[in-house]
């Protein structure tokens, strides 16, 4: 047996945007085992539920993450709304869907840029982030914020987007669709990109199911699971919606799924803009506090997220629990690292699109 060496990877490492630690057990250049450690930035955000009344808690939950903050706010509101038994006006549901899908575009473009940067394709990284900037401009224009929007509230949304502005957004998206397609073609066709992704870190369908992989990580291995199919938001009123699925299970397949979802999200937004009804933005909730249990789920850019709320009839929830997608994908990451080359470790970590802030809350 070859001599085994343990290489500590992280918590601080050039390829890691956030702290996570892996003990990589190596035989020569091959990883035979990876033991993960997290917990360096646990902030105890869920515990703040004891000090913040439920209408204010949405501001805390939004701050779990800077990439999918809107989705976290929506997931929290959805859970408390379920607890209160209220139905959100249609226009608010459409606006939430539009902002959420814009977040997915921005998240996937960010990820594609980071991936390009990881394998040394600097110009591709810059093009991805240039397009992403346009999405951030739409956020700023419609919410006033580029990272945290604070437009989602229990019962609806705080801000409207005028129909004229929505038409303008649709026009912008039509414009960047062509640019996006050109950049995506590089990821799909370029030989140097393929050489870093094809056949690297393969996760079979059975392994993805057995390890509970979610989001693009699972869908790249053929697991056709997407919470957008459960009938919430404006998704149920779309012409057609089916999860983007690949079957190869390798890093290239995970890249293809995100490219497919990026294009799909733009189509969803354009269709939602065409169909958005006029009407109220929120249900006014007075003299009522959440009582009981409700588990809401949302398909975040990184995968399925859980939002469990437990109310006791007071202004303070007894519990809010957020289970984020990276949390669920760590076991699958550990599996894909087994047998890979040391040089591929950064790429493999990136292909689960890890968000440690989300994971630790």
């Amino acid at each position, binding site marked *: 047996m070859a001599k085994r060496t343990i290489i500590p990877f992280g918590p601080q490492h050039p390829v890691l945007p956030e702290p996570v630690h892996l003990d990589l057990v190596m035989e020569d250049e091959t990883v035979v085992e990876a033991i993960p*450690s*997290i*917990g*360096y930035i*646990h902030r*105890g955000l869920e*515990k703040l539920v004891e000090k913040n009344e439920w209408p204010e808690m949405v501001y805390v939950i939004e701050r779990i993450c800077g990439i999918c903050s809107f989705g976290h706010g929506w997931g929290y509101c*959805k859970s408390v709304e*379920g607890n209160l038994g209220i139905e959100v006006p249609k226009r608010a549901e459409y606006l939430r869907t539009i902002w959420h899908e814009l977040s997915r575009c921005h998240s996937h473009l960010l990820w594609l840029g980071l991936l390009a940067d990881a394998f040394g394709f600097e110009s591709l990284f810059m093009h991805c982030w240039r397009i992403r900037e346009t999405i951030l401009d739409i956020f700023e224009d419609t919410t006033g914020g580029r990272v945290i929007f604070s437009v989602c509230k229990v019962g609806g949304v705080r801000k409207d987007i005028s129909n004229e502005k929505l038409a303008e957004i649709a026009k912008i998206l039509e414009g960047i669709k062509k640019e996006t397609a050109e950049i995506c073609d590089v990821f799909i066709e370029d030989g140097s990109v393929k050489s870093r992704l094809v056949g690297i870190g393969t996760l079979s369908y059975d392994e993805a*199911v*057995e*390890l*509970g992989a979610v989001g693009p990580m699972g869908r790249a291995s053929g697991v056709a*699971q997407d*919470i957008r*199919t*459960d*009938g*919430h938001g404006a998704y*149920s*009123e779309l012409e057609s919606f089916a999860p983007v699925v690949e079957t190869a299970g390798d890093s290239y397949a995970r890249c293809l799924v995100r490219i497919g979802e990026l294009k799909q999200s733009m189509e969803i937004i354009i269709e939602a803009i065409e169909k958005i009804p006029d009407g109220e933005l929120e249900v006014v909730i007075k003299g009522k506090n959440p009582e009981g*249990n*409700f*588990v*809401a*789920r949302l398909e975040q850019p990184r995968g*399925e997220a*859980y939002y*469990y709320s*437990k109310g006791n009839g007071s202004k303070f929830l*007894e*519990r809010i*629990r957020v*289970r984020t997608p990276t*949390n*669920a994908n*760590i*076991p699958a990451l550990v599996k894909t690292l087994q047998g890979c080359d040391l040089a591929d470790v950064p790429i493999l970590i990136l292909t689960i699109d890890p968000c440690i802030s989300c994971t*630790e809350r």
Partner: protein
Amino acid sequence: MSERKDLIQDFVPVQAADLLNAVADLKTAGYRLGQACATVIGDDIEVMYSFDKDVVLKNLVVTIGKSVPELQSVTGLYWYAFIYENEMHDLFGITFKNLALDYKGQFFKIAEETPWNKGANAAKSVVEVAPATDDTDVATETTKGDE
């Protein structure tokens, strides 16, 4: 318009002793584990395991005592539950028996032990350490200055 499957909320109370059988039944029926979490309710802790099949959830709810909380681990059936069970161990002080990958309290690096259930570890040590008899050698704590 499709059915609102997200509004189907199924919470099933389960006795701690029956948990593994209930989880095994769900696994056989093709459910996947979505998440697990704990909530302190007075003198008890409510542990909830959420399972999904065809985007519909089923939640198993187990209630255990808060002072010395213990539960059988489900990692024998769903290995990846180690993520949730280690988290519940660190935040609530719950001991999971037969936990497949036990971080022994090092999963989260937190300033305060078991913040949602303060004193859980101290209560455990009282139960676990056998009372010293007169002829028992009692080790004294060694401080850095003594070394």
